[in-house]
């Protein structure tokens, strides 16, 4: 598990530090022993399917849920038992939770008022926050009179006006349509750079997490499975779940044959570095864009190749996606007992020659492009 500090970590004290944090609701374990450090100024994404505990983790940082176990510090201060109103963090809620009986300006001023900041000083800060999220002219509207994107901006301004040490965002883009979501991704990232505040962002959308964050933490069933930069998580998934959840991948089942080789169930021994004990069941993860396809007759000599047959070819405009059957039924020579067929998805740029379904092909990849993952 990688825990490299973020590239722009400002101070040595982490913004958020968790040690053995667990949360149980009755018999249900929502979060199970999470250790995590988030650096100052980092844009950190907590990624996982719904029900994986990512929102509960965020709520514990906010103080809306109190951990059952473990230590939680914000900039070095132990806050695990503090109520939310004492914590130097603010939250952008999933459905924004704007106060319907207040105007935009009153919503934004709420946190300032609660901290006793009133008068011209508060007005100036509200105006600044309104400008920051480009909502000038909307100050006197009610939330119900705003579009989803505008409500999102109010929620951001309402949190940022307080200059929190950490901004927590719970699926902030989930309620927006695709186009607006992509615009807001860019905007949110620019905003984070501008204000320099640590952002902790919860999402179930892996593309969003990879695109926006400095580091990603992948969660499943209450556990934090892997923490790393988007590239680390994508290229070197720590286990089968992460490999499968982050992007598309081919998981080829097999058994390790040593620190540098895996015997695939589909019937070939391929080079693949791993740290597992010899003979452990494992899967080889190969990203579709790393798979190279050759007509069988044109297979490069010397390269490790698997033989297969194209069963499906899909044209996507900028690329082709091929499904290739490999293994015993695909006409590969030298079939052994116990070998099982598998399919590989491959992607290639449209510029290369198109291959048709039914065509016999050779499949290869560079060993560095693969990762061996266990359960």
């Amino acid at each position, binding site marked *: 598990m990688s825990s490299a500090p973020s590239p722009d970590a400002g101070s040595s004290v982490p913004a958020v530090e968790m040690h053995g944090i667990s949360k149980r609701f009755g018999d249900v374990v929502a979060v199970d022993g999470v250790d995590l450090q988030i650096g100052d100024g980092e844009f950190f994404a907590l990624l996982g399917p719904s029900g994986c505990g990512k929102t509960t983790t965020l709520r514990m940082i906010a103080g809306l849920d109190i951990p059952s176990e473990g230590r939680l510090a914000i900039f070095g201060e132990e806050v695990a038992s503090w109520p939310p109103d004492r914590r130097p963090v*603010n939250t952008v809620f999933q459905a924004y939770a704007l106060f319907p009986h207040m105007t935009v300006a009153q919503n934004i001023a709420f*946190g300032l008022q609660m901290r006793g900041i009133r008068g011209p000083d508060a007005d100036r800060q509200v105006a600044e926050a309104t400008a920051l999220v480009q909502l000038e002219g909307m100050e006197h509207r009610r939330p119900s009179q705003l579009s989803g994107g505008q409500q999102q901006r109010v929620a951001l301004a309402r949190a940022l006006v307080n200059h929190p040490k950490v901004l927590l965002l719970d699926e902030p883009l989930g309620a927006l349509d695709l186009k607006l979501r992509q615009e807001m991704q860019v905007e949110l990232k620019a905003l984070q750079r501008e204000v320099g505040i640590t952002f902790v962002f919860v999402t179930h959308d892996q593309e969003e997490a990879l695109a926006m964050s400095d580091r990603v933490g992948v969660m499943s069933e209450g556990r934090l499975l892997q923490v790393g930069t988007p590239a680390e998580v994508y290229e070197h998934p720590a286990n089968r779940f992460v490999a499968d959840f982050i992007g598309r991948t081919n998981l080829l089942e097999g058994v390790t044959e040593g620190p540098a080789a895996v015997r695939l169930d589909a019937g070939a021994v391929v080079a693949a570095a791993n740290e597992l004990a010899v003979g452990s069941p494992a899967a080889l993860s190969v990203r579709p864009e790393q798979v190279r396809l050759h007509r069988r007759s044109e297979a490069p000599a010397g390269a490790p190749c698997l033989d297969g047959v194209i069963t499906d070819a899909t044209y996507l405009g900028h690329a082709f996606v091929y499904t290739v059957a490999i293994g015993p039924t695909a006409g590969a020579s030298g079939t052994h007992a116990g070998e099982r067929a598998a399919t590989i998805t491959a992607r290639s740029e449209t510029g290369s020659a198109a291959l048709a379904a039914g065509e016999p092909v050779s499949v290869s990849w560079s060993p560095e492009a693969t990762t061996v993952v266990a359960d």
Partner: protein
Amino acid sequence: MPSEPRASRDEKSQAVSTLGTAGTKRSARHLLKANAWFVFAFLYVPIVVLVVFSFNDSERVNVWQGLSARWYGEALGNTQVISALRVSLIVAISSTIVSTVLGTAVALALDRYRFKGRRALDGTVYLPIVIPDITMAVMLLVFFAEVFKLIDTIGPRFTLGVTTIALSHIAFNISFVAVVVRARLDQFDRTLEEAARDLYATPWRTFRRVTLPLIAPGIAAGALLALTLSLDDVVISAFTAGPGATTLPVYVFSSIRQGVTPELNAISTLMLTASITLVVASLALQRPRSTTP
């Protein structure tokens, strides 16, 4: 636009025609229409008669002599009526205030907290709504008698009066307020409270600034309902009223034994107007607020 009603009428008659021939279809429609008018008349003709005859100039209720507001003047000049009205207002206002506070607190507790006996309380808090008035009245009378016996042994003498009427009204009004406020709380989004807490509001300020303003229409509706029920109550008030303290409805009920007078018509009309106003206001408050720019 003008063709639309006809189109929908055609659809309806088509739907009805599957039930029978054209003849039965037509008579069924006429019967339904007649029934609607009959129900309407059944409900409102007595009210119209009451209101019209309250403006009758005659000494006798059933003889029309001409339009006049004379009986309104007589009613308002009658010291017994005025003193009964005073008792009614004191009871209604005090019981409304107390039951609104307590009913709202009950609704909040039932909505938010999981405590021992919550389910039992949840089931029984609405009991006063369903038990018959007469049962409640007897129950309260027996209760007060026992309590007074107990207090008498200590010293001060208590008797039935304004206080006991007010206490009785509080007893049933709490339930009605709790029902109305809880309906409002069901629609309340608790994340708004979390947002307030996240924005540095203490629990109390969260309640004052976020929860209370958003459930206020429900509380106001409950209060108006309580006020109406208190002003209209006869049975429970009659049982718990002492010799010196009569509410207006109880006064009307006891006067009617000496025959209906035009004065009673006038009082009843005034009470009707007050009730309708309060109920309409209560309904208007319970309606989800439409967004106005």
